[in-house]
């Protein structure tokens, strides 16, 4: 057993801590997310320069040969600063599809651009009616000559306003919700027929509704085997969940620290409110939730490479536990900050909002509880 990071990992973390501190103080972040574009391409370029965008790719694909633990380290630091840059959609999701199922030509075409920061992806999987079921798809991809024609509507596609490309799930055959007949495509966002409506999200990111109106893509746009993509989607989204669990751990850590700090400074009845035992115990509970969440993040991350069942059990367990912890810690942090916690001015509210939104991404507590129950009893 070994819970230590390598020297290299520690170095990456330290330089990231610095980078996040320099770019992500509350005021700078507020200005960035409030700007027209809602993000800072120069920060993205800096991430590319630090080598982070190429980290999980093998060296032969043009990357740096890192793994899930490296993504975990990166994401935890991102969570501490509430970084909005689209690392998960681009590097973890699109990168994951390419890594696991891309042809040599596809890797050649896309990975270089991801690594140098010029190609940015969003992952268009959710639909207005499908809730958290990746197989519940109304978007279709019909064979047409050598290629496919896409039609459909994808909901709340995170990072899409910044993306140059989209990874899209679509039904190539079968009935709605069949696990067979699902395929994954890479689509250039500037293709004819791709229509987007961009908007901000409550946690300070940007997203789009993406409409595909007879979008023609070549055969090479298909990633993996036609109609057989569901297990692949599950692998990639489980990796994304593990990464976001790490992010949320970072955010919870800061939210907790801010709360403890505030309770030391804020005086009422002539004493710091942190001297009230009822608040102390609640901050202890928050801390316990945070520590358990770190453990679950390790579990999920380390099990990503295991058998399908083991992986899914661990990832769902983490998503359930951390989804609950994120709600708990977010709500308690606001409560202990009192009226100040309700203000947009204080950073704590922004952490609360990120902790809230996490639950609905890639399946909420109930969804993953069901997946866990089904696997554990099946």
């Amino acid at each position: 057993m070994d819970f230590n990071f390598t020297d290299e990992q520690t170095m990456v973390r330290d330089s990231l801590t610095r980078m996040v501190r320099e770019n992500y103080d509350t005021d700078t972040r507020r200005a960035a997310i409030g700007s027209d574009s809602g993000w800072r391409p120069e920060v993205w370029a800096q991430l590319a320069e630090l080598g982070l965008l190429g980290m999980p790719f093998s060296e032969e694909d043009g990357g740096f040969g890192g793994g899930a633990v490296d993504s975990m380290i990166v994401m935890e630091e991102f969570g501490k600063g509430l970084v909005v840059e689209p690392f998960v959609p681009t590097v973890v999701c699109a990168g994951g599809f390419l890594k696991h199922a891309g042809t040599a030509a596809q890797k050649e075409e896309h990975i270089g651009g991801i690594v140098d920061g010029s190609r940015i992806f969003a992952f268009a999987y959710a639909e207005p009616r499908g809730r958290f079921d990746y197989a519940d798809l109304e978007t279709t991809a019909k064979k047409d000559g050598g290629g496919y024609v896409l039609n459909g509507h994808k909901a709340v596609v995170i990072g899409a306003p910044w993306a140059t490309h989209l990874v899209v799930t679509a039904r190539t055959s079968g009935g709605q919700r069949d696990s067979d007949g699902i395929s994954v495509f890479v689509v250039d966002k500037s293709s004819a027929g791709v229509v987007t409506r961009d908007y901000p999200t409550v946690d300070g990111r940007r997203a789009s509704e993406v409409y595909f109106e007879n979008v023609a893509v070549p055969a090479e746009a298909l990633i993996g085997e036609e109609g057989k993509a569901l297990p692949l989607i599950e692998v990639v989204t489980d990796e994304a969940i593990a990464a976001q669990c790490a992010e949320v751990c970072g955010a919870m850590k800061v939210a907790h620290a801010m709360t403890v700090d505030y309770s030391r400074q804020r005086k009422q009845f002539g004493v710091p409110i942190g001297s009230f035992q009822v608040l102390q115990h609640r901050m202890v509970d928050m801390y316990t939730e945070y520590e358990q969440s770190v453990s679950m993040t390790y579990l999920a991350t380390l099990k990503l490479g295991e058998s399908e069942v083991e992986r899914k059990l661990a990832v769902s367990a983490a998503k359930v536990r951390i989804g609950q912890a994120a709600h708990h810690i977010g709500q308690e942090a606001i409560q202990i900050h009192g009226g100040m916690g309700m203000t947009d001015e204080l950073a704590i509210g922004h952490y609360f909002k990120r902790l809230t939104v996490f639950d609905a991404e890639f399946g909420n507590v109930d969804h993953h509880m069901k997946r866990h129950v089904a696997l554990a009893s099946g």
Partner: protein
Amino acid sequence: MNLEFTPEELAFRDEVRSFIAENYPKDLSSGGMRDDMSPEELTAWHKILGKKGWSTPAWPEQYGGTGWTPTQRYIWSEENARVNAIMPLPFGVSMVGPVIYTFGSEEQKQQHLPGIRSGDVWWCQGYSEPGAGSDLASLTTTAVRDGDHYVINGQKTWTTLAQHADWGFFLCRTDPDAAKPQEGISFILIDMNTPGIEVKPIKLIDGGYEVNETWLTDVRVPVENLVGEENKGWTYAKFLLAHERSGIAGVARSKRGVEQLRDIAKSEQLDGKPLMSDFDFARKVSQLEIDLSALEITELRTLAGEQAGKGPGPESSILKIKGTEIQQRLTELTLEAVGHYGTPYYAGMSDMGSNEYPIGPDYAQHSAATYFNMRKTSIYGGSNEIQRNIITKMILGL
């Protein structure tokens, strides 16, 4: 003991229901408060009720109350909640009004009660200060006697909707040398148009602006605006807080919220079936409903006690704690029900020029903002921790 309505009560319910159906402004009927509502919209129903004599049902009849029994008042709030009516704001009707008719001078009653009833005068509450929140008694805003005026200096904060207020009721320190912090505080009515008052909105986490910082610099207020006795303001403030708390339970509104939640969960899909038919989700809704009925009967018992002459006492803290917890869980479940469409920030879209048509279903649009906003309910009106401290002392005797 009996929970059924009598025939008279049923007749009353029909009367109320048809009055609301005929008179509630149609353009407000989509209902529910939004933070972009104008003062006119917020007071439209209040003004109609004022004319009918129904805006202050809980007041004694001599001051314009209705003489309704607790059950009738309960029916009244239920019927309003059914249409999501925008009820009179509490600051005049359930806070300062009762203080004025209980402790105020004859002149104050004549000057202020009619405007509260009619909805023509907008009130705000100037209690909290940056350094005095839960520890309200440590407030430092001073009122110094100068001839027939008080000269008031200090800073208030969290003053809800003060940006529209005509009048405010303020707690000010009139005797800085009093032995205990609770002594030496006075309850003063201030015309918000008096020179020296500056109101600055605070942006909250849901993106709205419902509270303000309020600065008072050499504000001259006639001594007639003192309510009751000088230095006895704490007594009136506590009286008011107990009234404020019972309103906070919001049972009728939460019941309506549960119905709306069920409707949402019927139209959201899970595995091709309505979310509402999912046991995990349905169980949470039922749990909420069960807790809500416990609160409802508890509130009715409290109301009945009041009718029998007991003022709202420390039991109102139970209503505050449970009522706000339920409101918060309700908004949390609603956000959960809408799935992905809780994520778009709707208030931010108008800035981006993309508000031509809504994103996602209508019911999803305010779900996140409402959830964020409702975190306030366990903080304001005496935080839930302070309510528990009150129960500890007043009921458990610890």
